[in-house]
């Protein structure tokens, strides 16, 4: 008698779990396209306005004389090695993580040096943390015993977002230009 009564409960439990799993996987598939708003020169920048283009997103700070310039040189060399048509289908976004020291006009001047169009963005630390979390990127301000006073530890990958605004994958730091171009061509 006892086991007979338990039977319909277990059927319901299984059915419930099945529906729950189905619901979760459906939610994952219907992940919302990426969107965020940050400051660019004299206006707000809305990520979704760039839909239709393949997006490259990189986080950094200007006081960094080592890793960041290397990435910019790689991006610049890669973009300059593909056709003008391909270039026009790509939007490069640079998100500066040091709003305390770096101003947007300075960021723009810095980016202009690398002979490729890049959109300079920054915001408050809270806004930046939010945007970084979208890409599972992270950064932190770390005081150091240096005349630099503090540094910014940060993830160094370049993140790729497709034309519809969906995250694709990340390009690791320090790869050769040929390999970087390979990533771009794969998604163009």
């Amino acid at each position, binding site marked *: 008698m006892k086991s007979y009564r338990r039977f319909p409960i277990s059927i319901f439990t299984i059915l419930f779990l099945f529906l729950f799993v189905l619901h979760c996987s459906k939610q994952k598939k219907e992940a919302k396209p990426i969107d965020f708003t940050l400051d660019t020169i004299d206006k707000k920048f809305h990520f979704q306005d760039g839909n239709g283009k393949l997006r490259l997103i990189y986080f950094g700070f*200007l*006081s*960094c*004389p*080592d*890793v960041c*310039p*290397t990435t910019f*040189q*790689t*991006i*610049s*060399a*890669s973009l300059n090695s593909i056709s003008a048509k391909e270039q026009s289908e790509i939007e490069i976004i640079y998100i500066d993580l040091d709003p305390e020291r770096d101003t947007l006009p*300075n960021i723009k*001047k*810095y*980016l*202009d*040096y*690398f002979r490729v169009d890049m959109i300079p963005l920054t915001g408050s630390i809270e806004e930046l943390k939010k945007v970084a979390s979208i890409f599972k990127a*992270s*950064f932190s301000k*770390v005081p*150091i*015993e*240096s*005349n*630099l006073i503090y*540094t910014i*530890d*940060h*993830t*160094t*990958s370049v993140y790729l977002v497709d034309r519809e605004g969906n995250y694709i994958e990340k390009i*690791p*730091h*320090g*790869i*050769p*230009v*040929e390999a*970087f171009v390979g990533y771009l061509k794969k998604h163009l």
Partner: protein
Amino acid sequence: MTLTKIILFLFILFPALAQENETNISTNGELIRMVPPSTQNSACFLKLTNSSAKDIKLTKVESSISKSVELHESVMDSGKMMMRPIADITIPANGSVELKPGSLHIMFLGLVSPLKLGDSHKVKLIFDTKKSITIQASVKEIPGMTKKMAE
């Protein structure tokens, strides 16, 4: 003292003296990284080779191109790059150490004036042996890495 004795004495003394005046350190590939004019900082990369049987430490660097010069190291930890000042850089006995992007570097903080491509600047390297050498490093662009460099 006879002349032969003097000559013999000098012969023994001279290599010892020469050794005394040398740092036992040689450098190559020295360059100062060209950075955009709006940047305050730059870095110097080079390879240091120690020809002596003892480890030698690079403890200090001086240059007039920036307000201060420090030794730094970039370390990658689970995809995150961290740059930290370090007290010295050891050049192993009969070995060498390479200062390169994403690793050890000499950091120029607060450039006095914007760097110009091709310009050459004096950089004084001071070692724990109390000896120093002054090298000439020219301002160069580090291009996007090519396959060869990454290897």
